[in-house]
Structures are given as C-alpha cells and as structure tokens.
C-alpha cells in the first residue's frame, strides 16, 4: 500500500513557460510534501515562469495542504515563478476561511482559462 502511494506521482505538464499541475486524487500529507518538492524541482529544471495548480476535484483541503499550497506560492515566487491556484470549490474555500487560512498573497482564479490569463498577465508584468 505504501509503495503504491509513493509510486503514484502527480503529473506536471509543461506548456510554453508554464507548468500545469492538475491534482486528480485526494491528497494525503506525504503526497503533498512530495508534490511541493516535485514542483520546485520542475521549476528549476524547466525554468518555468508560472505554475498553474488545478484543485477543482479536491473535495477536502485541510490546514496542512492549505499551508503547503501557500508555502509553495512563496517558495516559487522566490524562484521567480508565479503561482495561481484555480478551481477551488466553495466548500473548500469556506473550510479554509473557517480554519483561518486565508492564504494571503496567493493568486486564485475561477477556472483554468482565467488562471492562464492571470498568469500571462503576471508574467508580462514582472518582465
């Protein structure tokens, strides 16, 4: 079971200057930590300017995952890559706010398309 979890990695897709991460399974803590380093390594390897994280299928985000996501945004911004989180579900947003995790400094968008626009704009601004 453990081996199975470790082997199942979340795919990171590179399109032009951006990395696209679509989280399709419910995350557990180990996977979140792994994803964080995976994305950071991928940013280094590809020199991507932006990361788009789609969490539209995540039904539940706990404080750990929330912190992981906001931590990743600040880490990526130090590495000169913007992070946009797209497709958060209303229930998830309510949970995060109730937990007091308001994720300041994180950019969000309603869907992939708008997220892409925002990312392009942010990258253009930072040049």
């Amino acid at each position, binding site marked *: 079971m453990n081996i199975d979890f470790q082997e199942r990695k979340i795919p990171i897709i590179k399109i032009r200057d951006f990395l696209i991460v679509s989280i399709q399974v419910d995350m557990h803590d180990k996977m979140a930590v792994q994803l964080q380093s995976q994305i950071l390594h991928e940013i280094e390897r590809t020199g991507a300017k932006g990361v788009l994280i789609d969490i539209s299928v995540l039904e539940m985000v706990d404080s750990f995952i929330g912190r992981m996501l906001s931590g990743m945004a600040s880490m990526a911004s130090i590495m000169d890559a913007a992070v946009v989180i*797209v497709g*958060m*579900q*209303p229930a*998830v*947003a*309510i949970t*995060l*706010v*109730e937990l007091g995790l*308001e*994720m300041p400094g*994180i950019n*969000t*968008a*309603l*869907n992939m398309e*708008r*997220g892409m*626009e*925002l990312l392009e*704009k942010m990258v*253009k*601004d930072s040049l």
Partner: protein
Amino acid sequence: MEEQIKFENAAKRIEHIEDVLSSVAAGDLEVRVESDIEDDLTGIEEAINILIDDLTYELKQSKKIKEELEEKLKKIQEQQKTILQQQEDLLELSSPVTKVWDNILILPVIGTLDSQRTQIMMENLLQKIVETGCTNAILDITGVPTVDTQVANHLLKTVTAARLLGADCIISGISPAIAQTIVHLGIDLSAIRTKATLQDAMLFAMKKNNQLVNGKIQVNKIEPEETDK
C-alpha cells in the same frame, strides 16, 4: 347487629375477594365484591368496592388527560413544522444572488444579519460564482441596520472565501452607523474594497471589466483589467 364470622363462609368469601382483586388487577374494573351476609368482613368488602370505584374513576380521568395532551402535542408538533418550514423559506428568500451584468454578481442584503444567515449567504454567493463564472461580486448592505463584531467578521470571511475562488468582492452601502460601529469595534476593513453606493460599486466593476469606456457602456466586451498603463 353484626353476626359472628362463620369460618366455613369466611374462607369462601376471602376466596371471592381474592378472585375479584385478581380480575381488577387484570384490568376488569366492572366486578365488585358481592356479599349477602353482614359481619366483620363486610367492612373490608365495602372498602375494596370503594377502592375499585375510585380506581376506575382515576383511570378514566388519566386516560382523558392523556388523550388531551396527545392532541395538544400533535398540534404543537405541527406548528413547529410550519415554523421550521417558514424559517427555511425565509433564509432562502433572504439571500438572492443575481447576475446584473456580464461578469458581475450582486447580493443585496436586507434586514439584520446573524451567523446562520451570513453562512447561507456565503454559500449561495460562492455557489453562484462557480455556476456563472463571474469574477466580480457586489455585496450591498444598504438594508442592514446594524453590524456587530461577529457579522463584520462573517462579511470578511465571505470576501476572503470569494477571493480564494478567484472572484473580487466589493462591499457597498455602508451606512454611517455601521461605519461608526466597525471603527469603534476596531475591525480592519482596509483589505476589503468598499464603495459608497451600489451605483459606485457597479461603475467600478464595469470599469474594471472594460465594459465602460469614456462613460459609455461597451456591450459584449469583457476583458480582464488592463494593467500596462
């Protein structure tokens, strides 16, 4: 004139009393102790009869009361149901979220806010944001008479949750009384965009969407805000 108890009769009569008592215990309240002879046992027999009468009366009374209470309970339960139904209806009615323009949602709030209502408001607003894909929401609180710490906190939460979804939330129509309360309570609303009236909020949102150029409405033209100025 009382006769002496005759032993052979007494045994029989005691047996009869026992029979009567056991049938009363079994629920038959019609039986009575019958006796033709008057002696020392008669007093006991009569006392038993009186007790049975009393018991019958009391049972009837309690049965009646029970029926009445049950009826009342039924009525109360029905009323309770109606009240709950109406409360639900009221909550549904009290937080309408509508799309007023391309990319702009509006949520007018009227009446006093409590935590339950703000919770439902928040859920409705977020649901609607996802459904319509609108990225601007205006929360108009012109019709809210007062605000306390909790409600202000809920408003903040609503705006933050909308931001997490990727939508911008503007609060409009803050009355002088509310402004005073908020400042006195020491709540920091600086992170939230506030506008004086609904009109101002609408104009702001439309300008942001580039739907308004030189005071003229541009139809069918929604583009995100231009930043290279």
